[in-house]
């Protein structure tokens, strides 16, 4: 028996003391008082703008009123025309941005996951120098994305160190597939260590006895990885991957600075939206913003659906009821 199902580790759920579990009227009032300021702020800075964007996406630019021939001071209501236009002639730029966004998300998150897991496995092996590694691994995370854009533009400069090392003369930051490669390299550099960090935290929660038992049963390193390590770090890894996906879907700073605004080969949905808004075309900009929002929402929903309660427990930070045993052990040792 080499496969140890994660459920075997789970203890009977919900071990909370009774006092904490009871919802009283007093606690409810106090909670409402404590929670409402944050909810109010989020309503103002998130909910209200989202509703505004929805409304705004139904309006066209100020201009000549086709009926009266006068210049109108207000924006005319155009219904779903801003949305319909992505299927028309003007839609080419939108679809290019849409596919760029999707391509970047799939490729960067895939690479980050592989590199991050490899990093975590290496760090898990090392006993000394862990503080050094941990500090080193945090550096790419701490470098502002805007600065890492500049940093990589310098590395990928025509006379830069990337070309010197490769012995080639590639104009990385000009239009073309190599610009995409430059963005992917820079993004993966910044975020793979972060996945490594989260996976490492997951690895450290796996009890040593599980591995010893597997070794006794004659499981080799590969089998131990596939049948123990991966299933047990899955919750931590999935949350990390979900968050990376959400982040990659809204990518802006890196391609904007590394390659530039309005560059066909790297323009993402966020860049397109921001560009339209800064050109005072609020209607189309809002429509793109709404589409991006829905896209992000659908991907998140797909994750939750696909992966079940693991993730809801994880994203909800509600103590991971299903996997209570796994996570609570660390709380106890912390």
């Amino acid at each position, binding site marked *: 028996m080499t496969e140890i199902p994660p459920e075997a580790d789970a203890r009977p759920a919900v071990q909370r003391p009774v*006092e904490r579990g*009871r919802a*009283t009227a007093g*606690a409810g009032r106090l909670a409402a008082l*404590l929670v409402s*300021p*944050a909810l109010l702020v*989020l309503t*103002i*800075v*998130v909910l*209200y*703008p*989202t509703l505004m*964007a929805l409304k*705004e996406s139904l309006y066209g630019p100020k201009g000549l009123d086709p009926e009266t021939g006068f210049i109108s001071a207000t924006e005319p209501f155009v219904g779903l025309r801003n949305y319909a236009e992505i299927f028309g002639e003007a839609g080419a730029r939108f679809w290019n941005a849409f596919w760029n966004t999707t391509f970047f998300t799939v490729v960067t998150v895939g690479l980050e996951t592989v590199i991050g897991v490899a*990093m975590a496995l290496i760090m898990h092996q*090392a006993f000394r*120098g862990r503080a*050094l590694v*941990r*500090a*080193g691994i*945090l*550096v790419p*995370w*701490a*470098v*502002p994305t*805007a600065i890492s854009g*500049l*940093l990589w*533009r*310098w590395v990928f400069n025509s*006379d830069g160190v990337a070309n010197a090392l490769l012995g080639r003369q590639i104009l990385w930051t000009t239009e073309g597939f190599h610009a995409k490669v430059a963005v992917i390299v820079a993004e993966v*550099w910044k975020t793979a*260590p972060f996945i490594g960090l*989260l996976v490492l*935290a*997951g690895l450290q929660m796996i009890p040593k006895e599980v591995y010893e038992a597997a070794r006794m049963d004659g499981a080799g390193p590969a089998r131990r990885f596939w049948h123990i390590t991966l299933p047990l770090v899955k*919750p931590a890894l999935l*949350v990390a991957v979900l*968050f990376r996906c959400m982040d990659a879907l*809204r990518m802006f700073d890196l391609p904007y600075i590394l390659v530039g605004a309005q560059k066909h080969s790297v323009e993402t949905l*966020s860049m397109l*939206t*921001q560009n339209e*808004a800064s050109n005072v075309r609020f209607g189309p900009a*809002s429509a793109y*913003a*709404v589409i*991006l929002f829905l896209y*992000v929402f659908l991907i*998140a929903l797909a994750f939750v659906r696909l992966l079940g309660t693991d993730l809801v427990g*994880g*994203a909800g*930070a509600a*103590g991971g009821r299903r996997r209570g045993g796994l*996570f609570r052990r660390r*709380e106890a040792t912390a």
Partner: protein
Amino acid sequence: MTTLSTKWRSGLAYAGVVAVVAYCLAPFYWMLVSSLRRTGDIFDTTLVPSPLSFENYRAVFDPTQGFGRALLNSLVVAGITTVLALMLATFTAYAMARLEFRFKRLILTLIIATSMFPVVSIVVPLLKLFTDIGWINTYQSMIVPSMSFALPLAVWNLTTFFRQMPDELEHAAMVDGCTRGQAFRKVIVPLAAPGIFTTAIITFIAAWNEFLIALSMTNKPSMQTATVAISKFTGATTYETPFGSQMAAGVLVTVPLVVMVLVFQRRIVAGLTAGAAK
């Protein structure tokens, strides 16, 4: 035999660790080295700059670049955002960790979900609104939208910290005659100080790194934050990108964060993983 294989294993592990650290630090090191070259040597590919020159750093602080002002703007925006987010988040997180009430899971999930939001989709309507009420080029036009990611981040981090503290603490204080509010003020907040501090660092770093909001809400150089200002450096000659001063400015913007990371790495890792691994 076994000693040999363990030696091999640990040797391999160290080689791996060196590779990981090199992967993480090499590009940053390159920025540092490049910032210390003379303008004439900027395209050198030696690993150590020779001769060492601080010319680029002097260029950054040239008054025409307005970089000092940009740093100050970043400090104001990120600082106020952090303080506001922490104040609101402390209350919310305490309720989430300690009180039982209806819709708790739903509310927490919603708050966390907002941090996954594409920032650009709130920037567009807010940009229009702020244009109408004349808020463009003000600090509040950058601070208010920044709350959309800073507040969920802080709530999430603090909730996990409060959860790790035993319930008995307040119960003991309340048995000794404290009200719930006093128990919170006198017992919980001081004991949670390390967690609050960690959350403050993580929130500050996130706010300091912000680019899209600051780019959209400002068009006056004097109100730009450091990240935006650097991306718009023109340098003395307009024909060539001033890589030297960009690298020097990049180092200056990043070094405070790297120092924080080095000093508080244990705490930051605890905060980041507690937030995400749960």
